[in-house]
């Protein structure tokens, strides 16, 4: 199945955006405006949906003309691209999206053709699948760990570095006792919230020279 790599699923959705000359600002601009004000950190809608490793939303205005002698052509619709890398089963993920962040989904996808709303979960899942494209080749650097496992592992990595640094030259009995305590403490820690561990960065544009 080309959409899957190990236990990770690569979701690619292209939803046609409503083209209505009477609407100002246009639907694609309204999507862009909403997305520009949406948090990408721990209060991101995707942080509230279990199992999202990375996700992006992109308004694709048109295909790109690469120059003569190729033919110039244009799309008749603009498309909202939703690209996500997620844990496990697609139906479960889409259902969870509809349940956990219906308001955000509606605010974005209400500008797309045929969007039924997130309140009708089955209609939402069917709509998303109707807009789905199959991946031709999917690469995942780590393909056997869930988001939760990865967040815990990153937390552990940081704690272990501190533990090792602060326990150099300690006698064997103390080291053993404190390591057992450390491991138990680590296990009891809550999993960090998705999207919460990053530094704030003021520049997010990512121009070609960044």
């Amino acid at each position, binding site marked *: 199945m080309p959409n899957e790599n190990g236990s990770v699923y690569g979701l*690619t959705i*292209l*939803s*046609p955006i*409503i083209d209505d000359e009477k609407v100002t600002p246009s639907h694609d601009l309204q*999507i*862009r405006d909403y*997305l*520009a004000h949406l948090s*990408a950190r721990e209060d991101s809608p*995707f*942080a509230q949906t279990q199992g*999202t490793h*990375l996700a992006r939303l*992109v308004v*694709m205005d048109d*295909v*790109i003309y*690469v*120059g003569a002698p*190729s*033919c110039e*052509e244009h799309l*008749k619709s603009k498309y909202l691209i939703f690209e996500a*890398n997620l844990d496990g089963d697609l139906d479960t993920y889409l259902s969870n999206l509809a349940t956990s962040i219906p308001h955000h989904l509606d605010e974005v996808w209400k500008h797309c*053709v*045929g969007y039924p709303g997130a309140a009708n979960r089955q209609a939402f899942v069917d709509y998303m699948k109707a807009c789905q*494209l199959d*991946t*031709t*080749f*999917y*690469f995942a*650097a*780590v393909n056997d*760990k869930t988001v939760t496992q*990865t*967040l*815990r*592992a*990153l937390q*552990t*990595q940081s704690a*272990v570095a501190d533990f*090792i640094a602060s326990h150099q030259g300690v006698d064997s*009995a103390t*080291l053993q006792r404190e*390591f057992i305590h450390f*491991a138990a403490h*680590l296990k009891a820690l809550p999993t960090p919230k998705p*999207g919460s*561990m*990053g*530094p704030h*960065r003021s520049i997010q*544009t*990512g121009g*070609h*020279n*960044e």
Partner: protein
Amino acid sequence: MSNINGKVYAMNAITPMKPWKTWIVRAFFFVLGHIKPLQKDLVDLSFIQFARWVVVKRNSFPYLKKGQMQEDLKYDYLLFFSNFNGTWNQYIDAFSAVLSNGLNLIWRWSEKFPGSVPVTIFKEYIARVQFDTDYYYTAYPHATANDVKSAHIVQSSVDSLSLAAAQYTPEQFAAAYLRFVIQVQCHLGETGEAPIAG
């Protein structure tokens, strides 16, 4: 526009292909997907968290009726989405230097693709076919692909040692702890703010 979140960069690119050529691309990806050693360079690059190529046939753009006009295109399109660590220039430089043969096999079927070497012309082509991301989320913005791989190695080592720790005598534990430190010492790099590229 938001191509960057923490240490990850979201790249989107779209290139036109003559329809008969897309079967060659599909065949190449089929082979690449089934013969894992061919992915070695991609894995070794080690700064790509997730990447995908999607071939969209000219008549396969989602069509939902309900007032939507059906596309009427001459070309099929190759969509490329990548989540990589580092800067745009570093990424394209590394792609060109390490994966030039693979990239040529994938994109030479796209219109006007100049080849991945020399890199300047390749960069001009990528810049032309790239389009920007409007919203970008990652669950672990402070971590690179290597950080994630290392963190899982550390987690696994901690789990193993903590399972046996209580059974050891202090001397046995000290020896096991030393082996543990040797095992994880290369995987403790600090995560956090990405360095600023000059």
